[in-house]
């Protein structure tokens, strides 16, 4: 399963959840599969998608937040696994698409092959943790995982490829994204 297939399996399960996407190919792949007013694409600030999702989940406890993260991003900001686990927002789902590489920068290997990130999340204290390795498992389990009491961490093991960007560059301006997320979250303009 490559990232696009995984995202296509997940997309039909998404409604008005706020979706926060990490930088690089994660955002581009997701933008190519499904875009909505409640989708935020973090084009810089590598590592912080999980922190942004945490801030949204704390700021709007009644709204479900789904973070689309990558192994390189999670490894860069691992303290946030501990912070999310201890803050324990029930409305936060943290998906980590793990291809074992920094795909956006030339597929240099990460160390996620030697460190099971879902076990780090489990040790940190996420309420619910899962590891998904096949499209069949993702298809059968994602509906349940997205609606469990959070914080939920799901490692989705994916393969690298195909060559080249998995989707277009984000066409919304950064300010437009801030504004639409504030609208989606019911904040005043």
């Amino acid at each position, binding site marked *: 399963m490559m990232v696009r297939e995984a995202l296509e399996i997940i997309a039909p399960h998404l409604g008005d959840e706020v979706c926060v996407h990490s930088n690089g190919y994660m955002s581009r792949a997701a933008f190519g599969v499904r875009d909505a007013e409640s989708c935020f694409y973090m084009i*810089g*600030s590598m590592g912080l998608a999980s922190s*942004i999702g945490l*801030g949204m989940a704390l700021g709007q406890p009644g709204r479900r937040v789904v973070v689309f993260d990558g192994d390189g991003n999670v490894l860069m900001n691992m303290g*946030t696994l501990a912070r999310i686990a201890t803050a324990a927002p029930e409305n936060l789902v943290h998906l980590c698409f793990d291809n074992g590489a920094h795909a956006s920068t030339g597929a240099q290997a990460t160390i996620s092959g030697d460190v099971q990130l879902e076990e780090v999340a489990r040790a940190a204290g996420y309420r619910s943790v899962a590891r998904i390795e096949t499209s069949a498992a993702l298809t059968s389990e994602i509906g349940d995982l997205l609606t469990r009491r959070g914080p939920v961490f799901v490692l989705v093991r994916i393969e690298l490829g195909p060559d080249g960007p998995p989707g277009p560059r984000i066409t919304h301006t950064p300010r437009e994204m*801030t504004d639409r997320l504030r609208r989606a*979250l019911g904040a005043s303009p």
Partner: protein
Amino acid sequence: MTASASAARFVDSLQAAGFDFFTGVPCSLVQSVIAELEQRGLYFGETREDAALGVAAGAYMAGRLPVVIMQNSGLGVSLNALGSLHLLYDMPCLLLVTWRGFDRNDAPEHLIMGEVMPRLLDLFDIPHQAPLADDVDAAIAWAAHTLGERRKPVCLAVRPGLFA
């Protein structure tokens, strides 16, 4: 550390100015402010300063007006978050940054950042003030007005001794 009268007044003024989400990483120069925030159940301590900025960005999109507390050592950690998140996406927050190394009178690890901090903020086009005790309320009003108008981060630098 217990809260102090000056810290209580400071937090009162921040809340009156509309700030309603407080995160960060501690510094001894603001320990009474953090203690006051914790007493009020308002403080969300973070593991790193850039992670605190990420949380603040999310909170802002969720309708909150954030304050991010840090030592100026954390300003170095924060530069990419400021440059490629807050400044890029027009997300305001109040940076409450302690000025370690002020007047070159501090432990050696603080001297370089203490020296360059004002220029670093200028370089990132982040408006900043370092108020004396009598000017704190005016500085908070200035910060709230400026970040509302610009929709960008604004910094209040905390000199040693500002809070009892």
